[in-house]
């Protein structure tokens, strides 16, 4: 590996190269005081550089231990990990089915659609469902709801929370008849207590908050879902330099992925639509541009098909493209075909 690849400031890099240290092996072969003297930098800076160089070169050499490359996992272990990953139900079993069981934790999922199709509804439903206790097949976690447009209506969250508690009671009643089961102790207000609400008023605050989430979630480890409603709003209005916007958005997408993997939580990004002129006609597409569409791992598009709302898996590394219908009722998201009120629990 070459020395110019090291993540140090450009002036130090320049000094290293002009002093003749073009490869990592040359850096590792001297002591830090020699390096400091040769390159005309302080001892601490030299020490830093040696550390970085050792890290970088260490990952290329064979350690003689189990893994050839530090940090790599083999595919078999990953399969087992993925299978044991919990998923967050959307309360609509048809939708859960095409999602492979629900919204997966450890992944970033983007959900987009026209106004009024139900994006905020899904966001609120997920922030309630993540709290379903483990005994009922849920994750028993908390939710972070980042609201960039003021579309979070707390009355609606209360409606959905009440319906969730009622469904759990109904399920417990059934279980009591056949098995011994715990009483439901959650109340709707408790559910609201576990939804951590941030209101973001500009893209600067949005970026700051995403950066800060790492620390925040380390202090609140039971957060299992982060919902951003919507990721688009501030970036559509105030950004003049589109190239800059793309760079900033990509960095933000990477940060989300890191958060999802590090804390094993689900990140759900809600997006708006725009019209795009392709193949001779105008078509609907999710906002923020083509570069952004590469950034998210999973993408679900909500649309109208006749009289019904449908969800379509547009992009996923493991799920086939499929559509499922859903409805938005006073109790939240439900299946459109079944008329039964009971939510299917795992």
């Amino acid at each position, binding site marked *: 590996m070459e020395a110019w690849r090291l993540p140090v400031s450009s002036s130090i890099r320049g000094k290293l190269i002009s002093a003749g240290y073009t490869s990592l092996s040359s850096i590792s072969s001297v002591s830090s005081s020699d390096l400091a003297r040769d390159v005309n930098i302080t001892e601490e800076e030299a020490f830093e550089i040696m550390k970085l160089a050792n890290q970088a070169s260490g990952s290329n050499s064979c350690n003689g231990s189990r893994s050839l490359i530090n940090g790599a996992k083999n595919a078999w272990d990953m399969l087992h990990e993925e299978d044991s990953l919990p998923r967050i139900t959307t309360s609509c079993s048809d939708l859960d089915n095409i999602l492979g069981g629900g919204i997966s934790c450890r992944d970033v999922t983007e959900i987009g659609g026209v*106004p*009024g199709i139900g994006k905020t509804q899904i966001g609120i439903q997920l922030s309630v469902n993540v709290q379903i206790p483990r005994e009922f097949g849920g994750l028993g976690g908390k939710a972070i709801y980042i609201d960039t447009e003021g*579309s979070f209506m*707390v009355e609606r*969250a209360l409606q959905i929370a009440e319906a969730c508690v009622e469904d759990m009671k109904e399920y417990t009643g059934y279980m009591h008849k056949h098995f011994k089961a715990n009483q439901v102790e959650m109340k709707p207000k408790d559910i609201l207590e576990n939804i951590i609400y941030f209101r973001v008023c500009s893209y*600067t*605050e949005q970026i*700051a908050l995403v950066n800060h989430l790492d620390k925040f979630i380390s202090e609140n480890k039971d957060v299992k879902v982060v919902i951003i409603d919507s990721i688009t709003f501030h970036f559509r209005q105030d950004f003049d330099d589109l190239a800059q916007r793309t760079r900033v958005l990509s960095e933000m997408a990477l940060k989300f992925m890191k958060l999802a993997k590090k804390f094993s939580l689900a990140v759900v990004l809600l997006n708006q639509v*725009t019209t795009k002129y392709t193949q001779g006609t105008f078509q609907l597409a999710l906002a923020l541009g083509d570069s952004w569409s590469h950034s998210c791992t999973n993408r679900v598009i909500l649309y109208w098909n006749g009289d019904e709302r449908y969800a379509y898996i547009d992009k996923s590394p493991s799920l086939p493209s499929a559509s499922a219908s859903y409805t938005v009722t006073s109790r939240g998201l439900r299946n459109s075909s079944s008329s039964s009120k009971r939510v299917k629990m795992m």
Partner: protein
Amino acid sequence: MANKLIGEMGLHNKISNIFAARNIITAKDALTMTEFELMELLDVGIKEIKSAIKLISEATSPPYQSARSLLEEKVENEHLSGHLPTHLKGLDATLCGGIPFGVLTELVGPPGIGKSQFCMKLALSASFPVAYGGLDGRVIYIDVESKFSSRRVIEMGLKSFPEVFHLKGMAQEMAGRILVLRPTSLANFTESIQELKDSILQNQVKLLVIDSMTALLSGENKPGAQRQNQLGWHISFLKSLAEFSRIPIVVTNQVRSQNRDETSQYSFQAKPKDGLQEHTKTYDSHLVAALGINWAHAVTIRLVLEAKSGQRIIKVAKSPMSPPLAFPFHITSAGISLLSDEGTELKGPGINTIHARGHSDVINFLGECS
């Protein structure tokens, strides 16, 4: 928050000076660049950049609260938990109390359907004392097309709230609380609302009505993209104004006919053969709301007023907390009143379509009062 000064965030002096030397003064300047760009610009290692950004982000992040405390605050501090009653029973029930505070509510419909009448009635009821279901405050009414008529407002008051209005001096006081602004251009309007931002709370302004937003923007002769940018700025500003001052903002919008080029299909939706194209277009073939899809995303509540076979209907087309209900209404000397408090639920995207045929233009002054 975005304009917070980096100098005041408690960063190490050395790095703080480096930021200042490169003209990165506010949080916005720092966070608009990626970490690598900052590293290049400031000539500092990635580790220091990361820790500086960490501190800056923490200082710039908005505060949080639980949804429960949001609800409790609303219930405790706000009138009717943050709703302005419209005095239309069915509509108020659907909207959980009335027009919500802190968000944009849009009224869209063809000309002459009753949007301005609705707005005038709302302005009046907001000016009333709390005991009569009002907000006891001032109303700013931005009347772009000169549709506001004080005579009509007083007539509505006399007919719908006779017990209040016949009291001595009440009519004058109530009407005196409605401040009407007639901006001559978009720039004029922009200036006024910016001034307003600072004085809203002190002057007890409880409602802002903009009638109509479309007229303001259509007067400008700028090409498409620039117009979108202007609208974008206004959208952000109005939303933050509503939230910051916790007042309802009601905006009226006009309609336009749909271009043949327009579509509501995604690329993955299979296009039927040309013969069937007409069938799938039935939902799209009428009028649509003006101002575009960006605006449609930005409003929180959209009430569509339309006329179908001679009947005027008000539909709750977009609302996070209500099912898609449609109520028939008519306009009398007392203002708008619903003919039925039981709405019909409309499934599907039909709730968004706007029909304009067949309504009688004559307002029935001899009709029943609400």
